[in-house]
């Protein structure tokens, strides 16, 4: 017997009798003998929970995590603090063991949560319409590029070279087999070069993607890029760091047509890169071109307010090969984490968090330069990530940090390193980093 399989040998016999066959093998006679697997899978036999825990702890013990050493890495994935109630609530199995809410009468918890998620995303970004989540930031950006091609006739999508490399790579993959072109915009001073975009933009353009704060941490002239795109009848897509939006100009204020990004930092673990959660919001005009699930408010027969999956005519299970996207499962439970996170931090909390992030980052930036070991490389304004030129060989620097219980920094050029600061790095941890650097 197996703990997850409640059918006993007696049950089995009873069921086989009713079916009218002699044994289990008789249920597989429809598989042609030539292809039938007759051996035993080369896997170990079943194990107890006790043994499983030991084996899995064996793998775990070979990792060095951000709990073991201080993390100053970013690049779209952040060591943000996860409030206790987030995993506590999302682990309620009424949420976690349900599936896509096809039966709204017994899925209001999920649907209600999605509606709140969409509302919070719209409010954070100043956009009109949000979907229920995407796999992650880069795939959300790729879907935004496909929306641009769906809307316009041209054959080129422009991407600033200051967008995270993974995002550029994923979009490139999504577009290449449809014979669409990607145009990369040059950079200057670690920021996208608007003049280069002006020179390259043409009627063949369907959209542009700019990330702000960008891959290095610096703010971009998003509005300038969107205006040039719109002049060419192309859409402007912004890749945003959600916590920065509590402080910085919103995609709506910047005139952006579609905003995408990743909300891992809102209540989700880093998980070595996944599961994270992509978000995507658009203007009302583009609402019916959004990919994926959308929850809407409705009324039941008794007049009660209720929520339901809506605008489904866009989706694969109805439109099949004409669907806006093939996405089916998304990151619903991660979206619920972000919903609870945004609700908990609330109106004042999220802004305080953004200020805490940026002022700590600026503190670290200034003190690091004062140590004499680093130099400033960009004149751009930054939110919580920045790049410095290391006077010490970067390999030596990272080895020194590692020895002192700090995770390796991201190296972004031969002598350039990136620092990322979240609210989860306390003042004493920042001072510790500075002290370690001074000991070089």
């Amino acid at each position, binding site marked *: 017997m197996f703990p*997850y399989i409640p059918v006993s040998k007696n049950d089995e016999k009873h069921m086989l009798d009713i079916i009218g066959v002699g044994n*289990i093998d008789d249920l597989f006679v429809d598989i042609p003998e*030539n292809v039938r697997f007759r051996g035993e899978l080369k*896997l170990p036999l*079943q194990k107890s929970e006790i043994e499983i825990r030991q084996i899995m702890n064996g*793998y*775990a013990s070979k*990792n*060095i*995590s951000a*709990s073991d050493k201080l993390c100053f*890495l970013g690049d779209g*994935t952040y060591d943000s603090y996860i409030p206790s*109630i987030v995993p506590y*609530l999302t682990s*309620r199995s*009424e*949420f*976690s*063991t349900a*599936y896509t809410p096809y039966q709204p009468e*017994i*899925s209001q*918890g*999920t649907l*209600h*949560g999605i509606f*709140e998620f969409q509302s919070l995303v719209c409010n*954070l970004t100043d956009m009109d*319409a949000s979907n229920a989540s995407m*796999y992650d930031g*880069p*795939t959300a950006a790729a879907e935004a590029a496909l929306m641009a091609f769906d809307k316009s006739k041209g054959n080129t999508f422009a991407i600033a070279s200051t967008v995270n490399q993974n995002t550029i790579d*994923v979009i490139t*993959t*999504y577009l290449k087999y449809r014979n669409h072109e990607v145009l990369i915009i040059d950079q200057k001073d670690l920021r996208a070069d608007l003049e280069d975009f002006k020179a390259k933009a043409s009627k063949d353009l369907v959209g542009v993607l700019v990330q702000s704060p960008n891959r290095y941490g610096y703010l971009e002239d998003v509005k300038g890029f969107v205006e040039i795109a719109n002049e060419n009848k192309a859409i402007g897509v912004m890749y945003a760091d959600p916590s920065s939006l509590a402080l*910085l100009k919103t995609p709506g204020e910047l005139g952006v047509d579609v905003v995408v990004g990743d909300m891992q930092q809102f209540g989700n673990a880093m998980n*070595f890169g*996944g*599961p994270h959660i992509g978000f995507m919001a658009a203007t009302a005009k583009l609402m019916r071109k959004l990919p994926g699930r959308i929850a*809407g*408010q*409705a009324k*039941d*027969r008794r007049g009660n307010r209720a929520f339901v999956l809506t*605008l489904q005519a866009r989706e*694969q299970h*109805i*439109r099949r090969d004409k*669907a806006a996207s093939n*996405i*089916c*499962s998304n*990151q*619903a439970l991660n979206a*619920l984490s972000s919903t609870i996170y945004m*609700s908990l931090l*609330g109106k004042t909390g999220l802004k305080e968090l953004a200020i805490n992030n*940026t002022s700590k980052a600026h503190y670290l930036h200034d003190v690091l330069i004062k140590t004499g070991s680093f130099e400033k490389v960009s004149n751009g304004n930054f939110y919580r990530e920045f790049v410095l030129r290391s006077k010490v060989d970067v390999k030596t620097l990272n080895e020194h940090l590692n020895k002192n219980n700090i995770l*390796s920094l991201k190296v972004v050029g031969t002598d350039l390193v990136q620092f990322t600061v979240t609210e989860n790095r306390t003042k004493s941890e920042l001072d510790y980093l500075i002290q370690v650097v001074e000991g070089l």
Partner: protein
Amino acid sequence: MSSYDKLIFELSQPGRIGFTLADEEFSNVDYNQFFNEDELRTSELDFPEINETEVVRHYTALSNLNFGVDTGFYPLGSCTMKYNPKINEEIAGNPKFSHIHPEQPIEDVQGTLNLMYDCSEALAEITGMDAISLQPAAGSHGELTGLMIMKAYHLSRGDHHRVNIIVPDSAHGTNPASANMSGFNTVEIKSKANGAVDVEALKAAIDENFAGLMLTNPSTLGLFERNIEEITKIVHEAGGLLYYDGANMNAIMSQVRPGDMGFDIIHLNLHKTFSTPHGGGGPGAGPIGVKARLEKFLPFPVLEKQEEKFVLNYDRPDSIGKIKNYYGNIGIVTRAYTYILRMGRDGLKRASEVAVLNANYMQKRLKAHYHLPIDELCKHEFVLSGNFGLTHGINTIDIAKRLLDFGFHPPTIYFPLIIDQAMMVEPTETESLQSMDKFIDAMIKIRGEIDTDPDILHTAPNTTHISRIDEVEAARNPIIRYMKEEA
């Protein structure tokens, strides 16, 4: 279920807070010094103002409006709603796995890379494929990745004209949608009356532009494709590749392997066959497997073992490219591998045996009361029809809604499209005889009501906290975000 419909915004009270930060002095800095004036937000951030206690009460109340596998029987066909073991959650939640930044150097993450490698090997063994990529985030994402590999394969041979993907009319909606997204045309072929692939129709649909066939086996009708050898031969002789939609893998573990059937590319849904929770619609994971000759096209980076060290190889000139941020939904892979080790080769075999046993038992008992359009030995699921003629005006939707009153999640309805008024039932192996019997009793009772009291079906559900929703009106005038009521 108790009634609750408050939105978090409606609980907001000015001045309440739910969270505080460390180093308050950093939260009170004048941030204007860091930015230009035109870089700052001027619109109001209108998030709710709520205390922690109330946030917890609100989401607890919402959870009470939901039905999951832990609540009760969830025979949602094609979705494999099996029990989600709790140890999986605990293992994946270990900070030594979950609290790792994806940009950490590989020396830091040898444990996770080792786990990913071992999980890939196990999946390759279970499916009979040569190489696995864990990168796709969900089943349809795996389809997209697999079809891009198919495209790359044909292009590498100079076969630019091979743009047609043949898909049976019984296929999941994601199949044609993924084909379109990866730059192919979809050619749909009609299935035979018994739901099997019509071999003659397949032959007729193949021309010089043929790229490949997407097949779910067992099919969405829960039937094993008996002509699989002939189909494989036809596809390969025509220069095409055979794609396996792994949504129904739970029926065949240790009985038959996609690789041995001749499939070239497959995807798996770890959230179906390998027990990870569905999360109300995700996160899932959709690893793909390929035969050796297609290995060079896999998304980069590829995980390799070099002596005793695990490395990520980005130097892959023929790779289709990256398909997702970093390496995949590794938190889900960790859960699935915990399950695979826990079950072992004997447990996985037994899981498929009982999944098929349970489905055949339910099919046999229910066909005495409901129309079973295709009456054959089934695999892990079967499809009933809710078509009772026009006498009572009863449709499948009414039966589904009435099942809610009995405390069950209904089967998948109106899919597959080739069965009129379809009800697709998949019990999975984690359901007991008693639990299935209760469901069967409810279905028999409902069958009686169709003749004696059809109104009770028309008005169902009557015990849930809300009744049926006007979905047409919701789509006509979409309200998809909360707006404060004008004072």
